[in-house]
């Protein structure tokens, strides 16, 4: 689901820096999977994730969890919950020009089937539902990796 909203440029973060998730797009998804497979089971258990259906272009994956458990990789998009609307995650440093609750309502009106919490990626205009986020299982990650080999 895509939606263009003006005025959502990234700026250096002023104030508390919250990192609640990481998104990867296109080729970065494979690198995200590879990086996750380096985690031990205890670390993986702290994370949940969702991925776009097979064949979606560009492919998107989102991983959620405590900041210190999140993987780092080049070109990852770091996500933070809006302080006034925790059910909406935006790339860190993006300050919406309207209250979070209003933005969430607008997104839901535009994509009624996308159940909150939602991620909005302004660069690609993706709206991703996190309602189906599931624990990350090593076996599933491995299968997804193999499917890309």
């Amino acid at each position, binding site marked *: 689901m895509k939606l263009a909203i003006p005025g959502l440029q990234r700026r250096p973060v*002023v104030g508390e820096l919250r990192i609640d998730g990481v998104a990867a797009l296109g080729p970065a998804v494979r690198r995200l999977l590879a990086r996750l497979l380096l985690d031990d089971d205890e670390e993986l258990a702290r994370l949940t994730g969702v991925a776009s259906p097979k064949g979606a272009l560009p492919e998107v994956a989102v991983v959620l969890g405590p900041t210190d458990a999140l993987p*780092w990789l080049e070109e990852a998009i*770091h996500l933070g919950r809006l302080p006034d609307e925790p059910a909406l995650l935006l790339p860190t440093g993006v300050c919406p020009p309207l209250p979070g609750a209003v933005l969430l309502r607008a997104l839901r009106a535009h994509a009624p089937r996308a159940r909150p919490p939602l991620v909005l990626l302004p660069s690609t205009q993706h709206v991703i539902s996190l309602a189906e986020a599931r624990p990350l299982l090593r076996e599933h990650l491995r299968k997804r990796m193999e499917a890309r080999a």
Partner: protein
Amino acid sequence: MQARVTIEVEAAAERLRGVIERACTGLVQREVAVQLVVLAAVAREHVLLVGPPGTAKSEAVRRVATGLGGRYFEYLVGRFTEPAEIFGPVDLQRLREGVVETRTSGMLPEADIAFLDEVFLGSTAILNTLLGLLNERVFRRGHTTIACPLRVCVGASNGLPKEPQLAAFSDRFLLHLFLEPVGDPYLETLLDAGWTLASQARGGESTSDDDALASLDALSEAATRAEVATIRPHLAEAVRVLRGAGIELSDRRVVKLQRLVAAAAVLDGRTRADGRDLWPVVFAIPEPADQDRARDLLRATLETSRNVTLGSAAENASLGPLARAQRLERTAEELLGMELSDDPTARRRWRLRLEGVARELDAGFPPEDRPESLTAVRARLVAKLEETAP
């Protein structure tokens, strides 16, 4: 002449930076406490550390005192503590001559740096004598009146006192810092540091810089002469914003804020205060909830905060990007300079810490708005992560 003064200030600030770095080594999440003690010492003010027992309050102060050198006095005050335990016993020989004099050798009146744990438990006699000592740096008792060399007194308590007379006493500590136990993500680091600390204590390791106290005094002197006129309207505006939001700041605190701002400037190596130096205002607010509100209310004003010597404190007060960038650079340099261990667990943890810095850097600064120095550090971080990839 001005250039020479600036060079001297820079050199003194650098020396104190070394003291702070050594004091913080092995202490987890206590950089702000260490830095505020130094800020207060340069401003000739005092600090109150509020937090539960076991949060390394005394360790932080002891380390600063060790680094600075000079005489250090530390005492755990109790309800039944006698004034003599803090200020010294009465000189019995002189008493026989009808003169009440105090033998202050090795006691608080002769200390350069003091730490008083559970300070509010002191009796009225202790607190009244302390008031004079903190305010005027003069010890008066009986026939004894002596000028005290005290640079900074750090008081500690589990909470702020509710009684009005004690609240007035706590107001004499211009800087208030509220400490929490170390957060869960840092527990491994805490355990590590605690173990190393214990080994060092057994080995009797401690380092002090002979000239550090002289540098502190030089900076104090420079702070009293620092140019603060241009920042005054901005300081007044910040106070107006705070008072407008119902945050109380007594006139005494407002006037003394200038000293903190001047001290912050000289610790950043400058003799003229500007917008980068307003961040200590947050720590001069007595209540923890009001400090949090002040961070929000003054967000735009404090956005330019930075301090090369007190980076963690500036960042904590302002939550500003420049101070954050400074800290990230410092942490990255520290991690990049570490010798790699052969132990796979240690290597893995080191990598995760590198990733943590890279993550905070990427999340906090979009590439187009990243300070140049941070871009360079990031390139080295990424190269090291690739080089050491499993």
